[in-house]
């Protein structure tokens, strides 16, 4: 047997002084062989693209039919500034929009709220009222573009604004395509933007699912996001396990709210990170598809095959970018983007090299977009489906990640489910432990980061940085005050009163929110109205 000979030989080979593990710490063997896949059954465990259990991709011909949607997450300054950037990106071949909101908007606060000081237009675009949304999409035909909005606690309000902008452009709701992130569970676990406690947040989400299933059928109502869990420091396995478990929790809440699973599940989509470990990332996406398909069928009794499809957007890992030698970030992003494509993503956002300093400049964001275009048009990678399928290593890793995810599911179930586990700080503790361990690995040089702990240079980087001028805040405060002055305040008061009543009675909130938006109620007014009914969330402090 040749294997014996090889095994004897490799024992005598000198190895580099390095711990061979994935970024997440899973051990990596020198070689993978058919022995690693002894019980592997092609039809059961892999199947064909577009066929159960969808490991090889959710669509029959994948990128040979249509490339992934190229999005760059963008937003800064006033709606007018961002509108200009969108037109720039669309001109350079971007195929979908992805709106980044500033912190006050993410928290449902107006630009003139005292807590918004210093934050307006900084990390994204400021949206206070429908007027801002009209400017944001001015001259952008909503029937031709799919828009993803990274918004969570006030997702219902921003979606309502988008729908009304569509109305004003003459685009019916049933034609609009896009996504709201609307994933509150991961907010409590990782990204930490919240307004209300978990239970009312879940109610708002099921209201959105119910409303969209009827009125906005092509809208993705939740983008279940592992991205932020990973950025907060989790391992790939934790990202996979927590994200999928969150996904199933939305399914359970939907069913409990009386919705038919096949009516809302096809509109749930996912959002993953693409980190540094090439093969581990690819295996993560493949495992996620198999877990979702199997449990949706076996546990949640979905009948519609579309309910089994785990479609996902990917963003390259912002947390892996370095302030040192920032140009290297272009290469990091390219490898991560390639992993996402090999993993079968439906949509991709590549980070810009300057993001460890500020929001990207036009030049940096164009390089990031070109990175995707190079993969799509020059590498040949999208020409065959799941080219790593059958790789002993990738299949083994896929199996290991799947197994690890099921172990986490059990642990979370024992804690009483996701919401209970959040209240107990389970996810928060797991994630910050992993973040700290990763940092220690870097400092012990068990993991390398070029420019940070190996091949360091003293030179200060010299790259252009985007600056958000102070005038943005002043202009935005002026704009929201002007809207308050010019609108019909009696109508606003009535609409807010109706919203509060709906919150108390359990009636679906979406139609009431739409009413508020139409009469130019501000985001802060709507969110505060619900706060009176639902209360506010306070996090247990854990580090």
């Amino acid at each position, binding site marked *: 047997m040749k294997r014996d000979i090889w095994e004897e030989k490799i024992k005598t080979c000198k190895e580099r002084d390095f711990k061979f593990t994935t970024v997440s710490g899973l051990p990596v063997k020198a070689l993978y062989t058919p022995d690693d896949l002894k019980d592997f059954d092609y039809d059961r465990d892999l199947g064909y693209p577009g066929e159960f259990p969808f490991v090889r991709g959710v669509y029959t011909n994948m990128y040979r039919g249509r490339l992934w949607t190229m999005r760059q997450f963008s937003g800064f300054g006033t709606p007018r500034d961002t509108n200009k950037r969108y037109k720039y990106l669309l001109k350079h071949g971007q195929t979908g929009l992805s709106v980044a909101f500033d912190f006050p908007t993410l928290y449902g606060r107006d630009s003139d709220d005292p807590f918004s000081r210093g934050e307006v237009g900084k990390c994204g675009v400021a949206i206070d009222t429908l007027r801002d949304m009209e400017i944001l999409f001015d001259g952008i035909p909503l029937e031709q573009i799919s828009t993803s909005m990274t918004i969570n606690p006030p997702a219902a309000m921003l979606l309502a604004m988008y729908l009304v902008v569509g109305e004003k452009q003459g685009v019916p709701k049933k034609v609009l395509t896009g996504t709201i992130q609307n994933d509150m569970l991961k907010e409590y676990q990782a990204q*930490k933007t919240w307004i209300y406690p978990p239970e009312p947040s879940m109610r708002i989400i099921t209201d959105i699912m119910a409303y969209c299933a009827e009125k906005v059928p092509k809208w993705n109502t939740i983008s279940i996001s592992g991205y932020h869990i990973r950025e907060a420091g989790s391992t790939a396995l934790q990202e996979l396990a927590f994200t999928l478990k969150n996904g199933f929790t939305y399914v359970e809440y939907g069913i409990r709210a009386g919705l038919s699973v096949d009516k809302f599940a096809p509109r749930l989509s996912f959002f993953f990170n693409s980190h540094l470990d090439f093969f581990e990332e690819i295996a993560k996406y493949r495992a996620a598809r198999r877990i979702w398909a199997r449990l949706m069928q076996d546990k949640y009794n979905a009948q519609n095959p579309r309910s089994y499809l785990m479609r996902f957007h990917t963003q390259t890992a912002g947390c892996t970018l370095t302030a040192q030698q920032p140009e290297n970030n272009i290469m990091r992003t390219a490898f991560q983007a390639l992993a996402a494509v090999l993993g079968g993503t439906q949509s991709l956002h590549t980070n810009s090299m300057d993001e460890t300093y500020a929001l990207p400049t036009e030049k940096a964001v164009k390089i990031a977009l070109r990175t995707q275009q190079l993969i799509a048009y020059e590498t040949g990678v999208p020409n065959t489906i799941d080219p790593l399928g059958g790789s002993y290593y990738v299949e083994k890793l896929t199996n290991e990640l799947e197994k690890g995810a099921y172990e986490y599911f059990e642990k979370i179930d024992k804690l009483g489910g996701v919401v209970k586990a959040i209240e107990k700080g389970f996810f928060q503790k797991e994630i910050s432990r992993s973040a*700290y361990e990763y940092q220690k690995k870097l400092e012990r040089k068990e993991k390398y980061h070029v420019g940070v702990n190996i091949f360091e240079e003293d030179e200060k980087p010299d790259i252009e940085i985007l600056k958000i001028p102070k005038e943005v805040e002043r202009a935005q405060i002026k704009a929201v005050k002007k809207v308050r002055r010019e609108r019909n305040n009696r109508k606003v008061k009535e609409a807010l009163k109706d919203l509060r009543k709906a919150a108390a009675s359990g009636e679906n909130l979406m139609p009431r929110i739409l009413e508020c938006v139409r009469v130019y109620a501000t985001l802060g007014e709507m969110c505060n109205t619900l706060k009176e009914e639902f209360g506010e969330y306070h996090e247990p402090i854990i580090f």
Partner: protein
Amino acid sequence: MGRKIRVLVGKPGLDGHDRGAKVVAAALRDAGMEVIYTGLHQTCESIVEAAIQEDVDIIGLSILSGAHMTLFPRVLELLKKKRATDIIVIGGGIIPADDMKRLEKKGVKKLFGPGTPTAEIVAWIKENAAARAKKESRRKVSKRTKKKTSKKSKKKSGKRK
């Protein structure tokens, strides 16, 4: 100095990215310091209040949202108002080099960029907090002598006079 170095790690503003703050907090604790972590979404007022109440040597602020040019100076201003400028303010986060220079001019003692090893932060704090501790012992002496004479004014201006 006889007691542990006390550090308050604070997250002012609306920014929810607390990975860096928590990693640093854990590293400082492992290095034998007493660490108070404020949790998210704190106002500058509440951070300064807590720092004074806990009698910390250092306030470490972490800001990623871009609001650093508003929030850092605000903390410094409040410390001045409360006559607690002996508390050293340091920080980290996503802060462009130009802004770092300007903030250091305004009185932020040290800013650590992304990728800084935690050991470097620990070493800096040990060195600089020691200098403060010496000053503090002088301050404490004067505090003790004042205590007898002016209880009223002490009440008025808070714990740290």
